[in-house]
């Protein structure tokens, strides 16, 4: 009999393991290091305020109504801009998903205009709509329109052909095939597109507000920079991060609810 040796274990190691507290520890560690660097004078307050100062700025500016006013101004641009761009993008994208003629005529145009950084069109839109709100809303709407149209189109295109054949084989009218098979099947792709367009909207919002606005988070951050109020500046950036997180949290819930069959 030969000697028996147990087989050495070689698996494991790369499996994801839940680590619920680690994210919070990391956050606290970063903030702690930052605070220490500021308190010891390693980070001059002119370039980078301490977390405590930023916190204080956030509290003070919220209390005196500054932050709410800027947030309101921003949301009044971002929400209509996103809604208009999304509605138009879905209409065009879904039409390209359904009708060959719409696809043949629309897809090259949409693909050609998609890569243009939409902020470059702001001067033109200002000429058309004036310096006020409509030109900013139009910039956001344009920026949202193209990715929405493309993601809605490819979401429709990726619905399995066999499901559509199934609908035809049972004699479903075209409108029913669209409503009961194509659109629900395209939903995951359309919702994934919303995540992209939400970040596009936020980006264009800040850019447009920096180009010419009195209120809005982008304008607030720019003014703070001009006045070298770094605590206000970082507070404004923190607001943008919170806004982005809230949007993605909301979209996550929407996805889970709409796609609850998954």
């Amino acid at each position, binding site marked *: 009999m030969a000697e028996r040796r147990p087989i050495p274990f070689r698996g494991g190691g790369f499996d994801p393991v839940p680590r619920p507290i680690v994210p919070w520890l990391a956050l606290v560690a970063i903030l702690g290091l930052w605070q220490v660097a500021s308190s010891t004078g390693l980070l001059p307050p002119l370039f980078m305020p301490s977390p405590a100062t930023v916190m204080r700025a956030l509290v003070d500016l919220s209390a005196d109504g500054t932050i709410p006013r800027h947030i309101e101004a921003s949301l009044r641009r971002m929400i209509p801009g996103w809604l208009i761009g999304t509605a138009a993008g879905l209409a065009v994208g879904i039409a390209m998903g359904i009708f060959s003629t719409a696809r043949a005529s629309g897809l090259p145009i949409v693909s050609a205009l998609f890569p243009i950084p939409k902020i470059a069109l702001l001067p033109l839109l200002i000429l058309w709509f004036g310096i006020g709100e409509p030109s900013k809303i139009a910039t956001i709407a344009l920026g949202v329109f193209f990715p929405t149209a493309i993601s809605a189109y490819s979401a429709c295109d990726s619905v*399995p052909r*066999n*499901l559509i*054949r*199934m609908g*035809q*084989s*049972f*004699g*479903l*009218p075209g409108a*029913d095939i669209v409503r*009961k*098979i194509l659109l*629900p*099947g395209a*939903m995951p792709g359309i919702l994934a597109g919303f995540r992209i367009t939400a970040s596009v909207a936020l980006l264009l919002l800040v850019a447009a507000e920096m180009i010419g606005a009195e209120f809005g988070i982008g304008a607030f951050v720019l003014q703070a920079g001009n006045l070298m109020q770094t605590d206000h500046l970082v507070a404004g950036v923190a607001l943008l991060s919170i806004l982005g997180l809230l949007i993605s949290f909301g979209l996550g819930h929407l996805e889970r609810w709409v*796609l609850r*069959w*998954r």
Partner: protein
Amino acid sequence: MPVHIESVSHRYGTVAALEGVDLDIADGETVVLIGPSGCGKSTLLGIIGGLLKPSDGVVSLSGTPPVESLNPFTYIFQDFALLPWRSVRDNVGLPLEHRAIPAADRAGRVAAALALTGLTDFADAYPRQLSGGMRQRVGIARALVVRPAVLLLDEPLSALDAQTRQLLMDDLLAIWGREPATKIYVTHNLEEAARLADRVVVLSRRPGRVREVLRIDVPVADRARPEHAARLAEVQRRLWDLIRDEAATADREMVDG
């Protein structure tokens, strides 16, 4: 209902998939189509069901389908083709929703089809919660709900494992005993062919032509009996002889397009 296939040919661009297929299928008959991979079986089924326009030839139905048959030509799909966002009940009810029939009749048809396929307890489940065999039962229930005159089955069991396939084949046979529909059934599995078919139609390799039609003289209901085992094994052997060479040649062909 009797189905007549008259000199049907089909080309995809320059690829000839079917050439001059002639076949008469009697009312209530079960015809199994076999043939090497790519010989045009799915194409023929698509033409019969009106999903593909043949390049040549016609398919016709004798007589008018009974009024309760809402969708005379009805498919059962290899990949089940269920809507994942609908429950079992709503998947089965889908073909009725656009038909002008009373709601009570609609619910009754769905309930009857669910009962017949053993799905009553799963009516509220979603497809992803079901095994492959149960999913295909949903596909079968959805087909029965319209009381088809002609059932078209394209490899309905081939996405299933061997044991599930055996079980579902038995269930299909039990259901078919009560279904007056004419059945046209495509498969690669010669055991299924020997078990289910009144007649087996052997197609040649692409472009598919009818190479041989084999009638199996044992009544379908008796085929599970041991005394017929030898006869059915012989049928399978004969079918294999008919397609072996062609299948081997077809397998070595380049797949174009």
